[in-house]
């Protein structure tokens, strides 16, 4: 559905040329949801803007639904954009239009008749839980309602492709969770192909099946989300892993302080290994969470027992890909 071939995008300024994207290839099947991860300077936003040609690549081709956008006339491109939804960053609502009229905006641009517009707007507002605020002005809405309005506006045209940047940025944890659930439902129902530029692990975990990691304008890692999580050396996986504080010098005397990385490994193995090796174990820091049925996180544990038993436990933990890191 989305095919980016050898995309290069540069920006010229007084001191020369800055490469924003370099040799980027990205292919998304219909209905696939792919996260684009990277620092802002590494180009995720530019990549999304190149898909709907808000920024025209210097080299390469952009195909959406088999059509080469880079070869289109301005009129053809405008029509093609009617099938490409856009969301974020922020809500970007028109403050002088009510919620319903904000949502109907892309339909107006696409020339959809008033009757059809009203039906579609009512339907999506109902689904987003916004029916009661349909006639309110955006300034009267909560942050969550504003973002829901933006999501409704992005999906009201039933776009084949959605380009989405940090969809839950600035929302509370609960607000973000419910918005992501709504988006997941809409994406599944409409079979939308989605590119999500974000660094938020919760957004990636909730929406994406695949991820691409951008660094210096190049795709340096790419794969399915479960595979990525299962590879602790991956830069992408580190997004999902909490950072542990510096080890406390006062930790228990005689105990071995070890950092363990869980990337898809069942946490029960820790107690099984330590029991089998006859060492005591207590967790002193870190956290684990479940992402797509896989346990991901970092724990700092204290192992107590004889040096030989502890070493045996460490060897087993290494074999189980928990990457134990012993603090002196």
């Amino acid at each position: 559905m989305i095919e980016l071939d050898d995309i290069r995008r540069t920006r010229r300024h007084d001191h020369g040329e800055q490469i924003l994207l370099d040799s980027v290839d990205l292919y998304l099947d219909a209905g696939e949801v792919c996260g684009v991860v990277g620092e802002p300077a590494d180009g995720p936003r530019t990549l999304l803007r190149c898909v709907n040609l808000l920024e025209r690549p210097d080299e390469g081709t952009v195909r959406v639904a088999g059509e080469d956008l880079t070869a289109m006339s301005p009129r053809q491109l405008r029509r093609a954009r009617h099938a490409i939804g856009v969301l974020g960053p922020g809500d970007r609502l028109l403050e002088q239009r009510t919620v319903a009229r904000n949502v109907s905006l892309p339909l107006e641009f696409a020339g959809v008749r008033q009757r059809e517009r009203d039906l579609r707007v009512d339907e999506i507002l109902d689904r987003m839980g916004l029916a009661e605020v349909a006639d309110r002005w955006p300034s009267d809405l909560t942050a969550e309602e504003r973002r829901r309005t933006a999501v409704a506006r992005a999906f009201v045209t039933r776009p084949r492709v959605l380009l989405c940047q940090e969809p839950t940025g600035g929302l509370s944890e609960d607000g973000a969770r419910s918005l992501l659930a709504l988006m997941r439902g809409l994406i599944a129902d409409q079979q939308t192909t989605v590119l999500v530029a974000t660094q938020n692990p919760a957004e990636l975990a909730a929406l994406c099946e695949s991820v691409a990691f951008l660094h210096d304008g190049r795709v340096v890692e790419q794969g399915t989300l479960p595979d990525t999580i299962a590879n602790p050396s991956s830069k992408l996986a580190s997004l999902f892993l909490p950072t542990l504080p510096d080890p406390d010098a006062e930790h228990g005397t005689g105990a071995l302080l070890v950092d363990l990385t869980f990337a898809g490994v069942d946490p029960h193995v820790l107690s099984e290994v330590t029991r089998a090796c006859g060492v005591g174990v207590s967790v002193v820091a870190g956290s684990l969470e479940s992402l797509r049925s896989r346990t991901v996180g970092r724990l700092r544990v204290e192992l107590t027992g004889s040096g030989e038993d502890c070493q045996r436990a460490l060897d087993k933990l290494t074999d189980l890909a928990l990457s134990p890191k012993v603090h002196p």
Partner: protein
Amino acid sequence: MSHWLSVLPELARATGTTLATASVATACAVALGLLFGVALVATDKDGPLRVVHAMLACLVEIVGSVPVVIVLLAATSLLRASAERGLAASVVPLVVAATPWFARRVESNLRAVSPAVVEIAVAMGARLRHVLVTVLLRESLPGIASNVALTAVLLLGFTAVADVLDRRGLGGLALAYGVEEPRADVVVVVAGVFVALAQAVKWLGDQVAQRLDHRR
């Protein structure tokens, strides 16, 4: 007291004349200024129509730089030659003088709309007219309404100058009773009428702008 009996009808007539001139001039200057302001934004200085933009900007700058009294004097001498007088003769130079000012205000109102909002409209496949009307003009309507009121106040002042040159309206009355037949009390009343008119227009403009403004 008795002289007021003769002055009051004169004052009412003069106020009517000045108001009619200023109103027609405001309507024309707003319509033309809106067109020029939108055109200045539509033909962006870095876009493909930058030559048109430069020409428009140049025209607005040049006309806007000529002091209003010079525009009025030029118009008066031109129209004297053609022996045409009346409302239209007063209105044309006023419109010429006020249009560049209002066009610049409209341009600035339109440019104050967040580029992010414009960008999302373009990303949704908006045509140029959608961007200009549905997004830019609609979003900047409260600011434009305020500027319409300010233009009306500005044109009241310009009309006073035109009235003096044409010896009609409130300006003509002030000239008659201020210089030719000095009566300070009449001039003070004329000044008071101008203050009242200007404040009324400004208040009305603020009310309209407030009602149109849905931002917080």
